[in-house]
């Protein structure tokens, strides 16, 4: 956790900011997606070995201006922040977790994010289910396998899970886990569930 991100320092990074066995490792990535304020950054922060970093990309917002020809002339740009963290898993594999916002209009960013990703963990708040529909659509559109991590279930968990599966129109095999994104063990368990599922799908 000792990385210093001060932009003024030329050599301000401590050794643990670097990938430990970078010369032998392959980097892989998993997306942590969900609607605004569902806990993506918290999730990444709870299990990342580095202080989560953020990178900004300037995006052209095309989709919303398409219908308004007058609007196209002054093409609007917006900045999307991607939060990400890192987990060194062995001397062969280093895993990056990218927290990806669910807005459908950032097409280019989604292509960059989805390309080569092992899969996606979709964070869902049962009280804002409708906000998760566009996110799930995007993940399916890019052909990524995914698991659902729900922040809590009120009342009878079995009944709540059945209702959620129905509402989100999930396949029977799609894993659904409850996850407290603030808790390292809980986040790790959700990630493990996803990876086990991805492995089943690959076998």
């Amino acid at each position, binding site marked *: 956790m000792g990385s210093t991100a001060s932009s003024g320092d030329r*050599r301000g990074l401590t050794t643990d900011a670097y990938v430990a066995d970078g010369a032998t490792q392959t980097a892989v990535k998993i997306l942590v997606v969900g609607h605004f304020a569902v806990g993506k950054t918290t999730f990444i922060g709870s299990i990342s070995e580095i202080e989560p970093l953020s990178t900004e990309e300037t995006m052209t917002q095309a989709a919303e201006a398409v219908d308004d020809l007058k609007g196209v002339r002054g093409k609007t740009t917006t900045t999307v922040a991607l939060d990400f963290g890192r987990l060194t898993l062995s001397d062969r*594999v280093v895993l990056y977790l990218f927290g990806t916002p669910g807005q459908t209009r950032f097409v280019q960013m989604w292509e960059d994010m989805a390309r080569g990703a092992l899969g996606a963990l979709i964070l869902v708040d049962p009280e804002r289910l409708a906000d998760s529909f566009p996110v799930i659509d995007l993940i399916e559109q890019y052909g990524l396998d995914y698991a659902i991590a729900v922040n809590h279930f009120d009342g009878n968990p079995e009944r709540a899970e059945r209702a959620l599966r129905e509402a989100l129109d999930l396949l029977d095999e799609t894993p659904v886990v409850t996850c407290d994104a603030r808790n390292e063990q809980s986040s790790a368990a959700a990630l493990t569930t996803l990876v086990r599922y991805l492995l089943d799908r690959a076998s």
Partner: protein
Amino acid sequence: MRAGGEDFEFEPADLVRAYIITKGRELPDEQQLSLITLVTATPEEGRRLNRLTPEEQRLLDICSAGYLSVAEVAGHTRLPLGVVRIVLASLTESGHLMTRPPVPRARNADKELLEEVLNGLHRKFG
């Protein structure tokens, strides 16, 4: 992109600066410098002796103590990702950096990688 520059006043200041940093070069091939491509500085003898821009020097310095992903270089320098990719591509071209792109996805490779990821998660979190 813009020949006359008549819209110049509408450009945000940081975008103009980004253009200067990248010297107007285009984005490199995504496969070569993806978000998770790992980069590090090469030993000095293999390098072309060209003068580096301040940003090239700054990125090279950050990459000189070990491997970082392209995303991490952007995160640490707080430069936009697109700018970082272009500057890193230029440093790679002149022999200052070497890159380790992620393995292309294939079903068999995936299975092995996923097993490694799963075992790693078990080791780390029990």
